């Protein structure tokens, strides 16, 4: 059985705990064992990353070193975290001076980064560690006649040379999983464009316009829901739909990937924290039929 140590990042446990819960329940169902990383810190994405490259390396480097004490690869469920950890792993593995510097700071608490563990985003675990065939076999309640749009997340898929998850121009993992679960994966204009989340800090108005651009493009395809694989994308694509002038009826449910897969695997929606989603995805689940 494949085992991972879960690094949740700062945001999921507080703002999207249903994602954390559904990741665990779904991976358990698919035979992947998860342990929580204890005593972690922020990976430094975006903010520390922007002001001091060395401080960023120390923060993400510590998480990598902590994972080594568990002797397990890291599972990251957020685009920002998986991107940062992979970026810093790449830097540390190719820049011995930086690695020495980070290890000197880590030595105080008996930690060391050697580079022996890998960082995987959730999409990779589904694709590479579990595999499409095993997931297909585990589907007991396939969806029918549900149209879903996949949103991958910029930091999940780019830059490819570092993150190595999926084709950054034409990503397919979420789409495959949508189809394997019996639903219809729908393409839309601007699929690989950003949700606008990283703009929230500097200019909320522009961030919302970018997010709504995506929602409009998705709505044009008449879908029942959006499936995400990043904490920030999920939150952003949900909250832009509550802005001024947004209509209740026209809101498109946003679901994290394990929340979507769970019911098809026979998992009770309540165990997936569906009730915590701000836009009820009941129209997505209505179609889950017994085989």
């Amino acid at each position, binding site marked *: 059985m494949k085992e991972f140590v879960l690094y*949740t990042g*700062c*945001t999921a*446990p*507080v*703002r999207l*705990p*249903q994602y*954390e*819960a559904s990741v*665990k*329940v779904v991976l358990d169902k698919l035979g992947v064992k998860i342990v*929580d990383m*204890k*005593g*972690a*810190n*922020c990976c*430094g994405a*975006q*903010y*520390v*990353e*922007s*002001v*001091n*490259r*060395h*401080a960023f390396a*120390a*923060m993400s480097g*510590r998480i990598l070193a902590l994972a080594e004490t568990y002797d397990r690869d890291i599972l990251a469920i957020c685009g920002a975290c998986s991107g940062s950890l992979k970026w810093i792993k790449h830097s540390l593995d190719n*820049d011995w001076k930086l690695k020495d510097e980070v290890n000197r*700071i880590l030595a*105080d*608490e008996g930690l060391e980064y050697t580079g022996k563990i890998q960082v995987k985003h959730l999409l990779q675990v589904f694709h590479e560690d579990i595999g499409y065939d095993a997931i297909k076999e585990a589907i007991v309640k396939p969806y029918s006649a549900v149209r879903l749009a996949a949103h991958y997340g*910029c*930091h999940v898929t*780019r*830059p490819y040379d570092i993150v190595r998850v999926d084709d*950054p*121009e034409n990503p397919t993992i979420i789409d495959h999983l949508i189809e394997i679960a019996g639903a219809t994966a729908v393409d839309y204009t601007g699929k*690989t*464009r*950003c949700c*606008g*989340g*990283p*703009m929230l*800090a*500097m*200019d909320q108005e*522009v961030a919302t*316009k*970018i997010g709504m*651009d995506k929602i409009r493009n998705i709505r044009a395809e008449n879908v029942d829901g959006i499936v995400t694989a990043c904490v920030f994308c999920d939150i952003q694509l949900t909250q832009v739909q509550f802005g001024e002038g947004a209509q209740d009826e026209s809101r498109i449910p946003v679901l994290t990937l394990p929340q979507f897969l769970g019911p098809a695997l026979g998992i009770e929606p309540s*165990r997936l*924290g569906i009730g*915590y989603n701000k836009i009820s995805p009941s129209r997505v689940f209505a179609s889950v039929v017994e085989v």
Partner: protein
Amino acid sequence: MMSEPEHGPEKDVEYHPNSRFSQEIAAEPGGEYIRKCIQCGLCTASCMVANYTDKYRPRRIIQKILLGEREQVLASELPWLCMTCRLCEERCQEGVSLAEIFHVVRDIAAREGRVPKVFKDTVNQVLKDGWLLKDAFSDFIQDDRTDLGLNPEVNFDGEFVKKVKKRYFEQGDKEEVKDE
């Protein structure tokens, strides 16, 4: 099926922008991309930020760097508007990473104490608590976590960041994230 012709030897063409600022940028990790830009404007055309705000034109920021407008670039908030979504990098035919160039610009600006307030506040918060959302982590959220079958505690470490702060942000004026 015929494969697409590679970009050919041109792919590795580097220019030698001679402004002092572009050389300063090129000397930092990630900044070397500045040597590859041909100013075609594809990045601006593919950028969602540029699409929704006229003030942000990534090609133009690169041009200012090439022209050596150091003061203007470092004093501006524009390099901080990049979402680092890297969509432009998928499009750029010359293999330029704008996100990397802007990170170098931000790094240099930060060394001189020029950090937008929201970045400064967030960095200070993270360096104080060890993680971003300690203030938002309430009893209600603990109840939600219990209800979801999760450990109500989130177990973040607040000690390590003190070392990071001391090492990188308090060693003299240059490294500190100061008020603007």
